[in-house]
């Protein structure tokens, strides 16, 4: 399961794409990320699935585009 990351998260993960074992939903993904990458705990971030910001738990299926983003700072 590939996850694209942006902004300062590329420094936290040391890459702009990470691969994790498949999980069923975004809550499980969050739990797994916090376990595997303790450094992420200090960074606020947002999950987007298929280009929509996730606000509640979302079921994940193969082929979905999963993205981790730090708080926005455009403009």
């Amino acid at each position, binding site marked *: 399961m590939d996850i*694209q990351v*942006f*902004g*300062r998260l590329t420094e936290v993960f040391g890459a702009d794409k990470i691969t994790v074992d498949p999980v069923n939903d975004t809550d499980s993904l969050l739990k797994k990320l916090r376990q595997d990458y303790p450094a992420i705990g200090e960074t606020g971030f947002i999950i*987007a699935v298929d*280009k*929509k910001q996730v606000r509640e738990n979302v079921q994940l299926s193969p082929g979905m585009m999963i*993205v981790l*983003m*730090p*708080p*926005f*700072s*455009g*403009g």
Partner: protein
Amino acid sequence: MSEKKIKNIFVQGPVAPAFIAESIASHKSKTGIGGHSIFLGQIRADKINEQTVHAIEYTAYEEMALERMQEIREEIFSKYTLTCMHVHHSLGKIEAGDICLFVFTSAPHRKAAMEACEEVVERIKAELPIWGKELFGDATHQWKENI
């Protein structure tokens, strides 16, 4: 939302004043317009812990940003009586003093143009997945935060 309607807002490098002039001039034939409101974001040479920001490097999750911008555009047009609206945001390294954001709204009456422009600027900052990395003179950096 049809794919073809999605407008690009991203430009590599700074927004040039000459481009702004061309954009203004292109509205001369739209004689229903009574007022234009323009906001320009300029890179500020902020001093942070005795270091000075000499540039900001912008990256974006472009596909999502453009979809979100399209939704914002539609909401703005349904809320205000606008003739047109143009948004340009820089990507890449923009030096202090250069322009990184150009929001341009036009309407028959000034109030709609001004209010729409302000709302679009706020929503761009809050809702578009764009990130600024503040570059200091000694090759260190810090990630910008919108406050």
